[in-house]
C-alpha cells in the first residue's frame, strides 16, 4: 500500500509574524520557513507504517512555490521515497489543494493519505476533510493513535471531551494531532541520500485545477494589543487585586 503525505512550507513555528504596514498580509521576507509541524508528524507516521511493513512506499507532495521543494527534501531526508511538487505561487486555498490532491490520489491510488490537522499559517483546519469528501473516503481527524488492519484503520481521535475511536474502511484520510508521535530528525547520511531521490514537478493545470483563490482578502490587521499590567509581591496581594480591583473572584 502506498501512503501519500502532503507537506506545506510555512513560517517556522518559533517566529512571531509581523503584519505589513499596508495591511495586505504578513511580512514573510527573510523569515525562516519550515515544514508545518503537523506535517512532520504525518511524515513520521507514514514512515513508521512502512517500517512495520504496512506500507510499501511513502510519497511526499507539496503544493506551493519552487522553494517548497526544500520542504519535500526534508520529508525525503526523514525517509520518504519520492516527491511531487505542484508549483503554484501565492495563496492556494484548502479547497484547491484538496482538488489537486484528489487528482494525485486518482493517479497514485494510495491506501492512506496522512495530513497535518492544520497549517500553522492560515489555521484553516480543512484540507484533509475536504480531500476525504471529494474522494468519498472516510476520515480520522486529529489522530492520537492509529492501528492498521487488512481493510480498515482504527483511529483514536483527540476530541473536545477526551478521546474517541472510529473505524474506517480503507482507503481513508487521517489528519494528525500533536500526540500521534515525535517526528525523527534527518541524519546526515539520509540528508545526502535525499538529494538523489526523485521529485516530479507539476502544475495545478496538469491536474485541471484552477488554483485561483476564491476568498477575497480585504485586509490583514494586527490584533488588539494587551499591555503588561502590574507585578504583585505575594499570593495574598494577588488575591486582593483579583477580588477588590478587578472584581473577577
Amino acid at each position, binding site marked *: 500500500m502506498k501512503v501519500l503525505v502532503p507537506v506545506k512550507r510555512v513560517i517556522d513555528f518559533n517566529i512571531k509574524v509581523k503584519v505589513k504596514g499596508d495591511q495586505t498580509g504578513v511580512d514573510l521576507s527573510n523569515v525562516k520557513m519550515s515544514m508545518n509541524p503537523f506535517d512532520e508528524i504525518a511524515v513520521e507516521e507514514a514512515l513508521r507504517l512502512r517500517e512495520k511493513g504496512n506500507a510499501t512506499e511513502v510519497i511526499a507532495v507539496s503544493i506551493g512555490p519552487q522553494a517548497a521543494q526544500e520542504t519535500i527534501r526534508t520529508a525525503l531526508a526523514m525517509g520518504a521515497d519520492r516527491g511531487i511538487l505542484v508549483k503554484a505561487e501565492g495563496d492556494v486555498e484548502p479547497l484547491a489543494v484538496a482538488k489537486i490532491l484528489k487528482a494525485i490520489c486518482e493517479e497514485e491510488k494510495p491506501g492512506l493519505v496522512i495530513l497535518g490537522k492544520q497549517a500553522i499559517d492560515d489555521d484553516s483546519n480543512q484540507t484533509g476533510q*475536504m480531500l476525504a469528501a471529494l474522494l468519498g473516503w472516510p*476520515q480520522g481527524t*486529529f489522530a492520537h493513535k492509529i492501528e492498521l488492519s487488512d481493510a480498515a484503520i482504527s483511529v483514536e481521535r483527540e476530541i473536545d471531551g477526551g478521546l474517541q475511536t472510529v473505524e474506517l474502511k480503507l482507503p481513508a484520510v487521517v489528519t494528525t494531532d500533536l500526540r500521534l508521535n515525535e517526528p525523527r530528525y534527518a541524519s546526515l547520511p539520509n540528508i545526502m541520500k535525499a538529494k538523489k531521490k526523485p521529485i516530479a514537478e507539476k502544475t495545478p493545470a496538469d491536474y485541471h485545477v484552477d488554483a485561483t483563490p476564491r476568498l477575497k482578502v480585504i485586509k490583514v*490587521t*494586527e490584533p488588539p494589543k494587551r499591555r503588561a499590567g502590574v507585578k504583585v509581591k505575594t499570593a*495574598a496581594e*494577588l*488575591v486582593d487585586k483579583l477580588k477588590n480591583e478587578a472584581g*473577577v473572584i
Partner: protein
Amino acid sequence: MASLVIAEHDNAVLKDATAKTASAAAQLGAPVHVLVAGYQCGAVAAAAARLPGVEKILIADAQAFARMIAEPMEQLIVGLAPGYDAILAPATTNGKNYMPRVAAKLDVPQVSEILAVESPDTFRRPIYAGNAIQTVQAPAGKKVITVRTTAFKPLEGAGSAPVENVAAPADPGISKFVSEELSRSERPELTSAKIVISGGRGLQSGENFHLLEKIADKLHAALGASRAAVDAGFVPNDYQVGQTGKVVAPELYIAVGISGAIQHLAGMKDSKVIAAINKDEEAPIFQIADYGLVADLFKAIPEMEQELTRLGY
C-alpha cells in the same frame, strides 16, 4: 433564504456553543434555523426551540448521528443545503470535523473560526495563531462558516420555535464509531467557564495538578493546561489551551508555571483579566498579564489557597 446552524450537544444537553453560533448567524440578517442531529435527542431539540431569534428547529434523530461522525453528518447537511444561503457550525472538534466536508461537497471555500461578521459575506478571522486578523469576503453563493464561539455572546431572551423532523439519509457505511473515553469532571467546561486556572511544565507532574484543583474548587474554575503539560502526560489532551487546542476567553485566566509561548497565548489572550505565576520574571506570559507574581508556584499556590480560605471561599 435562511441560515442553518448545526447544534452542538451530547444527545442530552444543548451546549452553549449553539446559542453563540446562532448569535453569529443572526448577524447575517436572514432567519435562523437550527439543526439538531443526534440520537434520542428530543430534549436537545426542545432546548434549541427556546433559543431566542431562532425560527425553526430541524431534528434528525438516527443512530448514525449519535456521535456526529463526519461522513453521515456531511450527507445530512449537504442534503439540506439547497434551502439555505449560509451554514454555520461552532468551531468545536465536531464542527471542525464535518464542516469542511460539507464545503467541499458544495464546492465552496469554508471560512474558518470567524471572530466577527462585518457584512453577510465579509468576516474577520484569526491567522498565524491570532497574531494577525484577516478580513475576508466570501464569493457569491453558499457560505460555509465555523464560528469561534468565545467571540460571540448568546442573544438575550427566549423563543419558542416549532420543531420539524427531517429524514435521515442512509449512513454511507464507510466509518463507524467504536468507543469514547471522556474526561469526567464536576467542574465547569473549559470553554464556557468564568474562571480558568491552567498549569504548565512548571507543575512537574500530574500529581501536582491537585494543587491547582484546590484553587479551582474554591473559585468554581475549570482546569486547563499548556501543550507541554499535556505532552508530558500530566493531564488529558482535552485540557490543552492554545492555537491547536481549545480557545478560552473567561473573566479570569490564571496561568501557573506556563512560559507564554505564542501558541499558548493564541488560546487565552482574549481573557478579560489574566494573572500569571511564574518564577522567571522574564517569562513572556508577564508581557500580557494584568497581574504578575514572580514566585515559586509550590510556595505561591498553597499561599493563595490559604488566603482564599481565610476570605471564606
